């Protein structure tokens, strides 16, 4: 058989040679991760690593440990830890492997088809040998390969988006966690003032200067302060756990230390008049949508090409009829499947529908991107204005009121309880500033994300800033 099919193979190699032109169909050494890595480094300056060997895993773990040993943990370090350590993200990296396998599969030739017919009557033989090859695949394979190539590129982009989204969410979680810890510290101070005031009220009653009613009224401040603190601690615990989850930490690793304060408000919010155009050029979801439409368009071509002919098989054949010593008759075999019942219209209609769907989705993606980036930018500007207003107006105003109240206390124009209750308002204004600053940095992170892709995720529960009834006695 070796010898007999020599010629056939020779001819088949011509087809194979043609196929190779369709594209490289082997696995890349980095599994396509290189482009993800590059995208992440270029966009946010962080390292994305997909460890696939034990040595790599160990190196990564020690790097995470080093980052976590920094006290306090900065926002950038938290983001880096999350990218290195979040297991959901690592699972997403594996998607890339799956997509690449599909691509490689698409790039490979279908196996040639060998058929042999052998019949014998005495010395009369009938032998038919054919080595056929799905010729149409020569036409369709480059098309299919193109489709898969785009799908793979899209998979790479979506993995990059996942990395960047995780980075953004981690940054926001870090902001929320730091702000909530700061708020808890302030609330502890409020409780301390309230505690002094409640104790003083108790001593007022003890000395006979106050009725139980007056003491109870003053105690309301303490009761409220305890409530504020409990709420603040609740918010703080939720914010910290979210950050811990995003960084993929557990056990002793979760004992990381955060800074005492958020970074200061930048002097001015940056002007970005061209932000929509930039977003359209940069956003990965728009790129992905374009790749998708291209892939789908190729797919439509493919479907249309093959709508009448499902399979066209072609190959060399030889036939021997008669004596074994007779020469083979050479020829070829063409097998054709005719669309007698299936004219391919359904497949084409489906592909067309998918194509239009992809086009509309891409268009909507662009519309959404513009709107999202506008919203994010406005939010960034407004939260900056609000935080600035807190910093430059409300906090100094409360401070001035506190100073004037102290002067009034000095003149015995107001009592110590008024002074303490006013201190509480001052502290609440500081807490309000912390929250405004938190909202600004979150909006800043959202704006950066809006330049990459869709903005998701919230900041978690806000602390309550309105004053409950019991405290309104002053």
């Amino acid at each position, binding site marked *: 058989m070796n010898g007999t099919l020599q010629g056939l193979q020779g001819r088949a190699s011509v087809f194979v040679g043609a196929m190779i032109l369709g594209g490289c169909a082997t696995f890349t050494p980095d599994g396509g991760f290189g482009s993800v890595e590059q995208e992440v480094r270029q966009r946010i300056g962080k390292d994305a690593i997909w460890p696939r060997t034990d040595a790599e895993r160990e190196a990564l773990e020690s790097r995470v440990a080093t980052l976590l040993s920094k006290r306090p943990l900065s926002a950038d370090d938290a983001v880096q830890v999350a990218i290195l350590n979040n297991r959901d993200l690592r699972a997403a990296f594996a998607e890339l492997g799956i997509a690449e396998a599909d691509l490689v599969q698409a790039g490979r030739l279908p196996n040639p088809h060998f058929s042999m017919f052998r019949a014998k009557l005495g010395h009369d033989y009938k032998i038919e040998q054919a080595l056929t090859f799905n010729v149409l695949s020569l036409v369709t394979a480059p098309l299919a390969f193109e489709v898969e190539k785009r799908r793979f590129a899209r998979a790479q982009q979506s993995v990059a988006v996942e990395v960047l989204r995780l980075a953004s969410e981690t940054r926001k979680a870090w902001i929320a966690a730091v702000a909530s810890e700061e708020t808890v510290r302030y609330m502890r101070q409020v409780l301390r003032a309230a505690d002094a005031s409640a104790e003083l009220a108790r001593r007022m009653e003890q000395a006979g200067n106050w009725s139980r009613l007056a003491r109870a009224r003053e105690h309301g401040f303490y009761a409220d302060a305890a409530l504020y603190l409990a709420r603040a601690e609740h918010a703080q615990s939720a914010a910290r756990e979210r950050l811990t989850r995003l960084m993929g930490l557990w056990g002793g690793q979760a004992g990381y230390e955060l800074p005492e304060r958020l970074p200061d408000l930048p002097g001015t919010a940056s002007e970005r008049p061209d932000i929509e155009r930039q977003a359209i050029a940069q956003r990965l979801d728009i790129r992905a949508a374009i790749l998708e439409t291209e892939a789908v368009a190729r797919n439509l071509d493919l479907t249309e090409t093959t709508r009448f002919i499902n399979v066209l098989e072609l190959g060399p054949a030889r036939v021997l009829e008669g004596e074994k010593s007779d020469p083979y008759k050479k020829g070829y075999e063409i097998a054709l499947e005719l669309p007698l019942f299936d004219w391919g219209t359904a497949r084409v209609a489906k592909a067309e529908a998918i194509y239009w769907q992809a086009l509309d989705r891409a268009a909507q993606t662009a519309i959404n991107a513009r709107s999202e980036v506008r919203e994010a930018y406005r939010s960034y500007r407004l939260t900056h204005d609000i935080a600035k207003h807190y910093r430059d107006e409300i906090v100094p105003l409360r401070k001035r009121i506190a100073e004037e109240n102290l002067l009034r206390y000095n*003149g*015995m124009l107001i009592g110590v309880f008024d002074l303490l209750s006013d201190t509480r308002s001052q502290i609440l204004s500081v807490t309000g500033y912390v929250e405004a600053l938190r909202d600004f940095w979150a909006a800043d992170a959202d704006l950066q994300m809006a330049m990459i892709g869709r903005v998701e995720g919230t900041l978690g529960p806000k602390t309550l800033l309105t004053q409950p009834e019991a405290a309104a006695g002053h």
Partner: protein
Amino acid sequence: MVTRRDFFRGAGVAGATLAASAVSRVSLAALPEPVTMDKADTQPPLLPPNGRPYNPVVTLNGWTLPWRMNKGVKEFHLVAEPVVREIAPGMKAHLWGYNGQSPGPTIEVVEGDRVRLFVTNRLPEHTTIHWHGQRIPNGMDGVGGLNQKQIPVGKTYVYEFVARRPGTFMYHPHADEMTQMAMGMMGFWVTHPKGQHPLIDPVDRDFCFLLNAFDIDPGSYTPKVNTMLDFNLWMWNSRSFPGIDSLNVRLNDKVRIRIGNLTMTNHPIHLHGHEFLVTGTDGGPTPVSTRWYEVTTDVAVGQMRQIELLADEEGDWAFHCHKSHHTMNAMGHDVPTMIGVDHRGLAKQITSLIPEYMVMGERGMADMGEMEMPLPDNTLPMMTGTGPYGPVEMGGMFTVFKVRREQKPGDYKDPGWYKQPPGTQAYEWTGPLAEPARFRSEGGQSMPLATKSPGAEFQVRKPKDHSGH
């Protein structure tokens, strides 16, 4: 012939200046030029340069308005206008007054004088003047709408009448008077008797002042005109202690003090070391048979009292309203009483939040007189003033009646603090102190207590010092 300007100078009113009038000279040509005062010090008496002779009064932290004689008529010119009045060193008030000050200048005339008063309105709203307590033609009584049209902004009205009855009077607006009096529009009027009067004795010194009250929020300047009763500044002639000048007299001077009340409450005015007679009221001199000796006389709202005494005890004698809240400056009326409340441990906790915080009131409020702590701008300490032996712990309606052997007749200058002769001052007892017998029984015979009250054991708290003060 002396010019008007020379005449005013001759009147000896130190500090008085002719106002650079906003009204044109021509329109004022027929008017006496208005004279204004730029300080709140007590001015020496204005000896009458013309007209009928009389013994002038001394207006405490005030002055007497000069006049001109015009064909036998005494002509005064009052200008109603916004003024800045020093309440005491460290505090100024934005008030409405007359001729640069609030209260306005004292007007002194003699029984039977024909008086013409030009009143120019430089306030932002119309006004009138009512001549409180005088017998005058109805059309001169100054009740806006009732007796006359209100004087419009920028206009000058003329009042003219004969000062028929000798006595002590006041003047104040009777147009939007709630606002205008709350802003300080008021003044004193004295009609001296013509010659000898059977019920009015000549005196060596004759002082006068108005009682008035404002509500000025600490840190602000303008009175709250809608305050009804809860005033925070109690004043004599719009001055609060230590801004009120002392009444300086010579030993054995016969002294008359005239007091008018334009506040919303009565004031029991009390003088230490002497007895006095109430020799005059709003109605004029009191009949001799009705006079009895007092050390305190209550001056009701809208009333005048004229008291007389022989200053025959040397020394520095307190002279004040006996409502003790009226001898305080601005204070918080809702400040809780902290007496006996132990601050230990808490002071530190509070200072962690309010670094400048200091405990006050734990031992009483005298801390206020001792400590010098920053206060809101333009605010007088609640109790203040330092005497030769330490803080006087006073404010408001308080001053000192100073009787001195060496004070010269006609000299009103402050002679300084009195030095008590040795052995005539309270001193510290350094001997042993016996435990006093304490009250032990509870309930009277009519309602004996069923059970012994736990409150029977009185804990007497002694003042103690805590760190952190």
